């Protein structure tokens, strides 16, 4: 890697890194938004599916004589409980998926920011080291 890659480009490398970082941040924000949106839709889908399935489930118990205004069947209660539990588990899965997506995007954003800071710090350190080495070399006296 030549010296130009560090500071001889008069800050082009740093500016380029910052610009790339900005684009990545925007992409992360968009991904987070989209992830949140997808998660919400999936939860809504799960809720809709289970809401739409409730009537057929309740009817099936009635057709079998296990349910009605005066019938309190244990089978029916157990079936509804499993249905509710399954519904809750699916909701929890989708909720956890939303959380994981958002947290992954947040960590990705943090990683990229940290990488940017490291890169800029390295650029500045190498620039300072090069300046120091040049100043310490006393090249104009190398002929002696």
């Amino acid at each position: 890697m030549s010296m130009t890659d560090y500071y001889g480009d008069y800050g082009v490398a740093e500016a380029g890194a910052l610009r790339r970082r900005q684009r990545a941040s925007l992409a992360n924000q968009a991904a987070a938004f989209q992830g949140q949106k997808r998660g919400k839709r999936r939860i809504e889908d799960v809720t809709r599916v289970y809401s739409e399935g409730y009537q057929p489930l309740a009817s099936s118990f009635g057709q079998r004589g296990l349910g009605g205004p005066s019938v309190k069947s244990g089978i029916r209660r157990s079936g509804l409980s499993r249905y509710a539990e399954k519904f809750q588990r699916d909701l929890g899965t989708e909720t956890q998926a939303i959380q994981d997506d958002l947290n992954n995007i947040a960590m990705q954003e943090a990683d990229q920011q940290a990488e940017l800071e490291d890169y800029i710090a390295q650029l500045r350190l190498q620039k300072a080291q090069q300046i120091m080495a040049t100043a310490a070399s006393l090249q104009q006296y190398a002929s002696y």
Partner: protein
Amino acid sequence: MAVKKKSPTKQPPKGTQSEADRLSALARAYGLSSSGKNITNVGGDVTGGGYVSSSEARQRALETQSDRAKAQADFIKKQQKSEEKFGPKTGGTGGGVGSTVTEAQRLANELARLKIQAEYDKADREAQQVLDDREASAQEKADAVAERKRKFAALSEVANIYAGQGAQTDELYGAQLEDLPARRQADLDALLQAVSAGRETIGGAEQQFLSSLVEPQAYSNVPLVDLSTAQPVNPLMGALAAEGAGTAGVTGQSAMDAQLAAQYAQLARGSAQQLNTGAQNYMAALRNAATGAAAAGRQQLGLGQNIYQNQINTRYSDLANQLAMQRLQAQQEAAARAATARAEAAQYGETPVDVPVDLPATPPPVDPNVAAEAERKRREREAAIAALQAARRNEF
């Protein structure tokens, strides 16, 4: 006309049997060939005195010719005296007809006179040649003197230039040597300023970095969701309860869901808290790294200051030594060249340098007979010279 008895062949006296051989030997003894040419030191250097010259060789030739002429004259004179006293020789027959002998003697005398005349003519020509050569050598000498003066002047100028180079060398190197301490101090001051500026830069970078660090907030306020306490009231549950459905299972499921949600939310909050702690530790590590880098930079600056300060001092010391050495070498070289030029100029100076000439050495006499022979040759040579001079005066 009576036939005259031919007198026996007149024999030359002892020692003149081979006159040409004797003259040749005499000439070789004095460094001449039998024809009178110089066989040693031919064309010697023209000198203003002390140099071997061709005129000297020619003088030798002239003297040799004089010796030969004197020898001839002595021989004829002795022969005439002998004839006046004892009558003409008959070649060992005990005498002969007087007129015939007289005529023969006269012819012999005439022949001898003609020989002497020829010798003197030859000597005269050679003497004239010597005079001509002397004039030529005089011109050569004048040219040589002029050349010597020119070389003397040129070499003296060269010597003066090199002699003056010492002062120029001092001026050149002296200025540099004098400038070195100021330059060294300037370099040391610049180094100190650079070190101070480096310290300020390091301190500024450290403070800027530390001030830019903020406490990590990424995991401190994570908007975590806990839906455990937000169970919605569903109308369907109420209807089911009204129809006789039990609530225990629903309540239990709801409680478990709430507990799980709370547990997950707590887990997320704990994770965020741990991550927040880790982020703070990481920031602390970065802060320590910056502080450590600043300390290392300051240490390196201090070390570099010492190293470069020593190197600067060493370099300027080396420069000073090199300049001093170069100046000394330049001065010595200039002095050596000036001395060389002076020495060369001295060879062409007013006082000529005597150049040793390898003259033919006369071996010392090894016995009295040899010494007597040498003395006889010397007298013959002197007599020949005197006869030659007399002959030249009388235009013989």
